[in-house]
């Protein structure tokens, strides 16, 4: 994809600790096209949130980006100086965090939390910034009078809508959403997802949607990437994902969700636990838990195309 909006290549992130470095993200490459929704799924600790924070360079010590590039519209974000980095944050890449209660400043009125980011990036006056904030609130279905409220005075759903509205304040081309609905109950989750879909159709921003919930991704994403032990192990179009998923780990994940036409079949989990990130096994990280594993799996499988627009890193299903 030459016209990719975001192109991540060979990105590695390590957490440096006393017991050695844990490689949370291991040579990850992927692209997001303008207006596309890329879903990134994986279990807890697979490195998906680390990856989300690495893109706008929000990681703090002891996390260190050790290799790779993150190109956004031609520039490598990893090469930018502090001033440039600050100027592309939010104006080009905005974020929605998992829990809006924690992501909104508890001692600041909602309006000010819109106004500060709008004023920093556009130079508008406070009154104009608040007008813009009111428009955004209307856009996501919040009464603009709520701008005078503090976060704790809003309901959970309203807070997440507000976080969404703040993310859209500068009309970014890319919004990274890190489990934006995980903290909400299923009804609200549905509401917020519909809101996101509607806004995206209207404003045309691209989304990197991170979650542990594959069933959610199958509904909203254009493409789905599966992460395991710091690596992307499979990437495929969402439409045919259920049928075409090929990697043994992905199939294991799908088998651990109940289906709607469940005929009483027992759900199967994946036996074993994820590999150590400090001292990862040689070769395929999933081999120890995999029923198809063979001697070949001691070498790292290449991430190859196994069907059009469908890649997987597995000796058994790939080359």
């Amino acid at each position, binding site marked *: 994809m030459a016209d990719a909006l975001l192109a991540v290549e060979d990105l590695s992130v390590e957490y440096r600790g006393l017991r050695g470095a844990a490689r949370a993200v291991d040579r990850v490459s992927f692209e997001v096209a303008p207006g596309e929704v890329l879903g990134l799924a994986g279990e807890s600790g697979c490195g998906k949130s680390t990856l989300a924070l690495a893109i706008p360079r929000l990681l703090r010590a002891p996390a260190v980006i050790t290799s790779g590039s993150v190109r956004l519209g031609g520039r490598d974000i990893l090469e930018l100086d502090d001033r440039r980095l*600050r100027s592309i944050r939010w104006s080009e890449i905005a974020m929605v*965090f998992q829990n809006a209660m924690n992501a909104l400043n508890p001692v600041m009125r909602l309006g000010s939390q819109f106004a500060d980011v709008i004023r920093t990036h556009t130079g508008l006056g406070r009154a104009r910034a608040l007008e813009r904030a009111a428009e955004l609130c209307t856009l996501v279905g919040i009464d603009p009078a709520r701008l005078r409220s503090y976060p704790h005075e809003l309901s959970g759903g309203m807070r997440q809508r507000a976080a969404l509205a703040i993310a859209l304040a500068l009309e970014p081309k890319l919004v990274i959403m890190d489990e934006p609905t995980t903290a909400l109950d299923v009804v609200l989750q549905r509401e917020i997802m519909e809101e996101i879909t509607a806004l995206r159709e209207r404003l045309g921003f691209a989304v990197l949607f991170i979650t542990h919930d594959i069933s959610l991704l199958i509904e909203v994403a254009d493409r789905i990437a599966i992460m395991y032990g710091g690596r992307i192990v499979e990437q495929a179009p969402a439409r045919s994902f259920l049928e075409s998923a090929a990697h043994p780990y992905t199939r294991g994940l799908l088998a651990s969700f109940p289906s709607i036409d469940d005929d009483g079949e027992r759900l199967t989990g994946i036996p074993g636990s994820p590999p150590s990130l400090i001292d990862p096994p040689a070769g395929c990280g999933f081999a120890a838990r995999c029923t198809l594993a063979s001697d070949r799996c001691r070498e790292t499988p290449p991430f190859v195309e196994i069907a059009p627009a469908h890649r997987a890193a597995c000796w058994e299903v790939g080359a």
Partner: protein
Amino acid sequence: MSRLPRRVLFYLAAGAVAVTLNFFLPRLMPGDPATTLVATYSGQLTAEDLQALRDAYGLVDAPLWQQFATYLSHLFRGELGVSLSQFPTPVTEVIGTGFGWSLLLGLVSVLLSFAIGSVIGAVAAWRRGSRFDSIAPPVALFAGSFPYFFMALLALYLFAVQWQLLPLGQAYGFDVEPGLNAAFAADVLAHLVLPAGTVVLVSIGGWVLNMRNTMIGVLDEDYLLMAEAKGLSTPRVVGSYAARNAILPTFTLLGLSIGNVFAGQLLTEVVFSYPGLGYQLYQAVTTHDYPLMQALFLLITVSILVVNLLVDVAYVLLDPRVR
């Protein structure tokens, strides 16, 4: 706003208890103040003088409840009796001057210490692990671990005696006329440097550690990550997001510290012969000036209650979640 009326009620009740204790405690002591007082002055004063003194202070042989009623009614009229050591100046007048000086010394030193300490703590937390972080907080703690009187006497010796850069004591020099002019203000300021400076030096470590610890907790919050993701300037992130939230727990401690100001900074005022409440309390004790002591205790308790109430009000303004 249901929290505030409840707090006000609490402070009113606490104030009533304090006023009552202030009356009964001296009377529970063996060898009550009245006897000591009369015994001390009996040689110097005539019988009429003694009677006048008894009347003035309410030292009558009336039943306790009647004395209490008299005490209360005097209290409401602002009559706290006559000082014995500075006879016949009313106690309220004696305290009035001391109150001003204590307030000046106390507020200046506590607020300076709080402000400087919190800024150092915030910067240390923000640049955790940096050279600043590994030097500033330990140095502040080291300064605070000296006994105060040692630090104060050392400073007094070096700056006032050895190098003669600063005045030895008192709140202002004998050669300046008190008044609202620049010369007097400068003189008061010069006399404030040593007492306030030494207090700041020994108390700053606590503020540094407090701020550093709460701020490190706040830095892990998602709203800080979001503030950085928003591309806001560093002063904005540190000020409006990090320090603004981290200051809340520290603020309660500030209330306690300001409350203690009214107890007079006893050691400070004695070492620098600063004419505040602490110095007066010290003198009242050494001269057995019971009316003055009683009035000072009352003032201290009531002031601490008032300041804590004010801090409660200010806290409500600072933290919208407790409204």
